[in-house]
Structure formats: structure tokens, C-alpha cells
């Protein structure tokens, strides 16, 4: 401390420089984040306190928490949308992670042409979400869909996939799982390859079967990746918009089915903002959805963190 008093101005400046330059180097990220991340977020929060028509910013009036009160306490369609969101989150995230683990496990063996298979895993992910959804919507068509055609071999009746709650959620979940399983599988595969083979050899000597090895060695050692994948998948799956929107194309796309049976919260936001032009209300939905996403991501973090070796 005493030494600090004797420092010259130049030395002090050097001291600040050393301390501050790192911030300078990372500043581009934060400046861009500020402009394209933080500012829109704060602006959304500001708009959510207004009664405001999308096309008429001048006519906006400040109504405090009025939008939130309406949303949380008087709007059954919002809670319907939140219910669908959570249902779709479960139906997409859990199969995604489980399938990805299984696929990664299979690809972690000596296979003929395994590079080809590994590359193939990422293909669904790099195709356009709109194209995927339109094709899946046809596969799940009521009259001429491939899925119903295959099911008819087993005597199943003609399923109107869009009409039911369970059937529509299943169809939408299938699109999401198909699209993202490969992505997570590659992450898991990369980490699997880092697990020393001596651990498996030792386990084999101890008489552990491959199933036991998978659950007792592979999965626990992949814990950080599973946590990462689950959190990433959660934040994505809580905000599903394109899939439910394009599953039901046409004038009623934004309502997510005739009885809103597959309208997610993000789709409800879209409906309020862009068909009803209620900019304030849809901003409030956006913020509530963001908070809900953080909560659910926190829960999935806590759940996946419990994976451990015994």
C-alpha cells in the first residue's frame, strides 16, 4: 500500500492501461450485444408498460403493469399457450437428449464409413427450419400423409394430426427432435472420444456389461455436456415459433390450431403483436416468456446436475 503513493503519473497510467485494456478488447462483443441484445430487451420492457398499437407509436399510452395484470390473471389463452409450451418442452427436450446419447454411443464404435454417418447427423440441423416444417406438415397430413399411410398398414384409423392436442404436439415434437438430435449427438460423441478406454477395459474385467458401462461410465462422464445440451435445448424449445406456425399454414396460422391446441407462448406473442397489433401486450408476453425460459432452464440445470457416478 505504501508503495502505491510513490507511483508516478506515468506508472499509474500504465497500471490503468493493464487493468483496462482487457475490457477494451472484449468491448466489441458488449457493444454489439448492447445494441442488438440489451437495448431491444430494455425497449421491450418499456413497450410492455404501454398500451400501444404496432402501427401507431405516437398514440401509445403508459399503463404501468396493466398488460401484465391482464396477461397473468385474466387471459386463459396465455396460460393455454404456456401449457402447450411446457408440454412441447418436455416432448422435445427429453427425447432429444436420450436419442442423442444413444446415437452418439452407436457412432462411437468402429463402423464402416462412420465419418459419413457422423456427417449425416448434422444434416437435419443445417436444413432450413421452414423447409423441414413444411415437409413434416405434409408427412403428417390427414388425407394423403405418409405417416397415416404407414399407420394404415397396422389398421390404425386416419389420424387428423392437427386436430388433437396430443397428436399435434407429437407431430411438432417429431420435427424438433429430428432436427436437433444430430447436433447434440455430435457434442456427446466428441466428449465420448475423450473418455480413456482404460476405464472401459477395467470395467470389462470387473464383469460390467456394455449397458452397465454406458450408464455407469459414459453418461456420468458426459455430465458437463449433458448439462450444456439440456440447457441449450431448453432455451430453444421454450421459444418454438416456426414449427407450430408452419404446421398450420394459412390464415389461421398464428392461432396454432382451431382451438389453440398447439399455440406456444412464442406463437401467442406473434399473434398478439402481428395480427392484433397489440405491441404492448406482446412485449409483456415476451418478457414473461423470457423469465419462464430462465426458470425452466434453471430447473433442467438442477436436474441434469444430479447425474453422478456412484
Amino acid at each position: 500500500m505504501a508503495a502505491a503513493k510513490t507511483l508516478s503519473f506515468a506508472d499509474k497510467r500504465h497500471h490503468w492501461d493493464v487493468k483496462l485494456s482487457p475490457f477494451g478488447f472484449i468491448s466489441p462483443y458488449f457493444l454489439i450485444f448492447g445494441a442488438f441484445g440489451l437495448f431491444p430487451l430494455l425497449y421491450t420492457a418499456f413497450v410492455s408498460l404501454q398500451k400501444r398499437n404496432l402501427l401507431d407509436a405516437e398514440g401509445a399510452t403508459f399503463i404501468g403493469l396493466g398488460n401484465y395484470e391482464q396477461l397473468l390473471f385474466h387471459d386463459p389463452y396465455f396460460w393455454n399457450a404456456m401449457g402447450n409450451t411446457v408440454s412441447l418442452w418436455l416432448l422435445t427436450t427429453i427425447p432429444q437428449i436420450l436419442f442423442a446419447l444413444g446415437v452418439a454411443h452407436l457412432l462411437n464404435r468402429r463402423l464402416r464409413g462412420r465419418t459419413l454417418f457422423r456427417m449425416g447427423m448434422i444434416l437435419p440441423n443445417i436444413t432450413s427450419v421452414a423447409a423441414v416444417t413444411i415437409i413434416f406438415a405434409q408427412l403428417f397430413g390427414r388425407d394423403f400423409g405418409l405417416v397415416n399411410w404407414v399407420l394404415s398398414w397396422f389398421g390404425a384409423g386416419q389420424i387428423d394430426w392437427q386436430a388433437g392436442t396430443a397428436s399435434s404436439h407429437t407431430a411438432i415434437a417429431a420435427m424438433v427432435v429430428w432436427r436437433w438430435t444430430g447436433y447434440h449427438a455430435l457434442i456427446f460423441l466428441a466428449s465420448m472420444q475423450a473418455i480413456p478406454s482404460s476405464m472401459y477395459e477395467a470395467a470389462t474385467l470387473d464383469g460390467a456389461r456394455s449397458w452397465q458401462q454406458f450408464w455407469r461410465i459414459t453418461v456420468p462422464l458426459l455430465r458437463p455436456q449433458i448439462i450444456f445440451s439440456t440447457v441449450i435445448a431448453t432455451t430453444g424449445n421454450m421459444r418454438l415459433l416456426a414449427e407450430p406456425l408452419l404446421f398450420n399454414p394459412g390464415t389461421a396460422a398464428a392461432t396454432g390450431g382451431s382451438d389453440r391446441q398447439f399455440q406456444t407462448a412464442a406463437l401467442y406473442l406473434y399473434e398478439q403483436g402481428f395480427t392484433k397489433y397489440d405491441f404492448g401486450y406482446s412485449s409483456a408476453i415476451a418478457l414473461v416468456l423470457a423469465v419462464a425460459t430462465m426458470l425452466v432452464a434453471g430447473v433442467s440445470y438442477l436436474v441434469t446436475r444430479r447425474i453422478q457416478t456412484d
Partner: protein
Amino acid sequence: MRPKTRNRRTRLLAGACAALAAVTVLSGCGDSGAGGGKIKLSLGLFGNFGYTDLIKEYQAAHPDIEITERTAAYSDHHKNLAAHLATGGGAADIEAIDTGYVAQFKATPDKFVDLNTVGGDKLKDRWLGWKWSASLAKAGQQIGYGTDVGGLAICYRRDLLQDAGLPADRDAVSALWPTWQAFFDAGKRFQAKAPNGVKWMDGGPTVLNAIVGQAPVGYYDQNDQIVVGSNPALRTGWDQVVDAVKANLSAGLLYSTPTWNTGFTQGQFATVTCPAWMMTKIKDQAPDTAGKWDVASVPGGGGNWGGSYLTIPKQGKHTKEAADLAAWLTAPEQQAKVFTSKGLLPSTPSLYDDPKITGYTNPFFNNAPVGKVFTDAAKKLNPQYQGPKAGDVQTEFGNAMQRVEQGKQDGAASWQQLVGDVAKLK
């Protein structure tokens, strides 16, 4: 020591500046100016306006103007337009707006060029009076030039009606259904002997739209109040269509969806409510069915469904040129060409007695005299007042009827939910 420090500081500053520059460049990247000296005009459309040949003609007459068409699906188009108007950028120089949405957009007339200030007031008499006033804002600004009107007829499959033992000749078919009740009764006769997998009508929502379009009062009264719950014409129509759905006459398809389009190509239904623009859709969607279709008069008298406007968003760079182009595209001469090439019914009454129009027969529809059918209908048409959210009310009607068709609710429960849903549209 000192020079190094300064170096670092300069680098730091440079880094921050670069970051700032990146931010400004990114946020400032709008559309770059017109290149090549030509004035570039874009047209934002939905469906098929039949403008492709007209655009070539206009470009040939105006070598300094280059026109591009952007076509999107109906609902996407109107949502995108709202977003572009809200953000003040991205809209085309000319944006088409459907009748169902025009009242909503004219509520914010300052987003559009007031066509009355660029010569529109002198063109006013071109259009049907109600067409002109439907896009006229409260304070008198005109936001759009009318393109087509819908009118109403019924398009039907001659071959399928014949297979089921019904008459196929258009006059005999028209005579089958003076009223909607007669239309549904004919449907029951059809369905009893219908070819496998074929239904009488495409879907409840389509038919219901026609019935709504014929009512003297539709979703709104003149004071912009939604009167769905208290309008007996709507409830009567609703109940009739629900009965038809229960009698298994409907293929259960919602209009303007891919499955509905497939229904045309697969021949899943024998009749479809036919505003003039629907003929274009059928022809585009199922070109293989040429000659199998015909056109009969609509049950229950004249009515309108659809028709559009061309508007000029103020945010455009060349609003003057865009307004000229819109005026040209909607002029009677051009509307006549669109009618004979695409079948869209003109909104300019001077054509309704033009032999070129009235004498027009459509080969795709078994040479039906559509010129006469639709101009007669247009002359008789009693314009219905369209309220601000008519398009959204129509969407809710479609959803409500779908709930019945999908077996999710009965007619009464679905109606009750519908009345509650439309009450939230303010």
C-alpha cells in the same frame, strides 16, 4: 515505457472505434440506393394478381423504370406489411391489401401516401362507389386504388356431379339451388351416390364466408361495433353450415391451406364457393382439371368476398412513380386485361357493359360465360360495410367451423366460443 503505453492506448482506442464502427455500420445498413440509373419499383403481392405481362408492358413504355414482383402467401403478406410499416422499412413501393385488411390499415393513414394528393381524386369515378370508400380513411385520405372485387358464384365439377346422378348443365345446376338450404339438400343427394372419397363441398369455412358476404350486415355495424353475437343472418348461416358438416357433406379443409390446394388436385370435393379470384386459384392449383369445372350462380343472391387494393407506403423512395404505376395497373384498360387473362373481376363499373368483358367465356371452366355471370352479380351487389378487423374475425370464423369439423366441439359450443373470441378483437 512511455511510447509503449501510448501505443497500447492507441490500440485500445482503435479497438473501441472499430467496434463502434461495426455497430454503426450494422445498424445503418439499409437498402442501398438504386443502381444502374433506373428507378426500381417493387410490388408486394399475394396470390395471383395477373400483373406479370402488364409489368412487361409498362417497362417497355417506361424504359427508366424497373419493376420487381414479390409474392407471398395471403396471411404472411399482411403480417409482413404490418411489420414493415411498424419498423419504417422493408415495405415494397406498392403493397397490395385485401378487403379484409384494408379497414385495419386505413386506421393509420399516415403510413401511406394519400392518393388524393397525387391525382387520385380525379380518378375517383373509375371505381364502384363502395370500393372507393372502403379504402378511404376517416379524415378523407385515400390509401389505395381498387384492383378487383370478388363477386360470388359456385364453381362445380361437372364430372363428379354427373357421376352422382345430378345434372351437370350450368343452368340446371343453378336451378338446383336457389337457396342455401336447397344447396345443402342437393348436397345430401350428391353424397348418397358420391364417388369414393369425394365430398359435396371443400369445407364449412368457405361456404360460411359466402353466406356472410351476402348478408346486408356482416361482422360489423356502421359504427365499427362487432355484431357477430347479435346478427341473426350470421347465426342462421352458421347453423345451416353446421348441419351440412354433420351430414358429412364437407371435406373438412380450410381454405388457403396446402391441404385445401391438394384437395383441388385430388378432386376431394365437387363444389367450391367461387368469388372471381377463386377461378384463378383453381386454374393455378389444378391445371389438370381443365374442362371439368363449370360455374353456376350462387344460392341466396349477390354478395362479395375479397378483392384488393394497391397502396403506396410512405416509406418508399419513389412514391410518385409508384403511385403512377398503381394508377395505371388499376385503370379500366388494365383491369380488363387481367379479367380476360386471369379472371379477376374488375372494380371499375365502366367495364360491366363492355362486350369484351360480358362476352368473355372461360375455357378452363367449360366455356362458362363468366363475363356475364360476374358482371351481373357485381351490378346487383349490395355492398356490405367492412369493419376494422374483418380479416381477423373471418379467421376466427374459420377456426370455429374447424372445431366443429374436427369433432372438437358441437355447433352451439363453438359458436359461443367464437362470439367470445371476436369480442376480444378491438
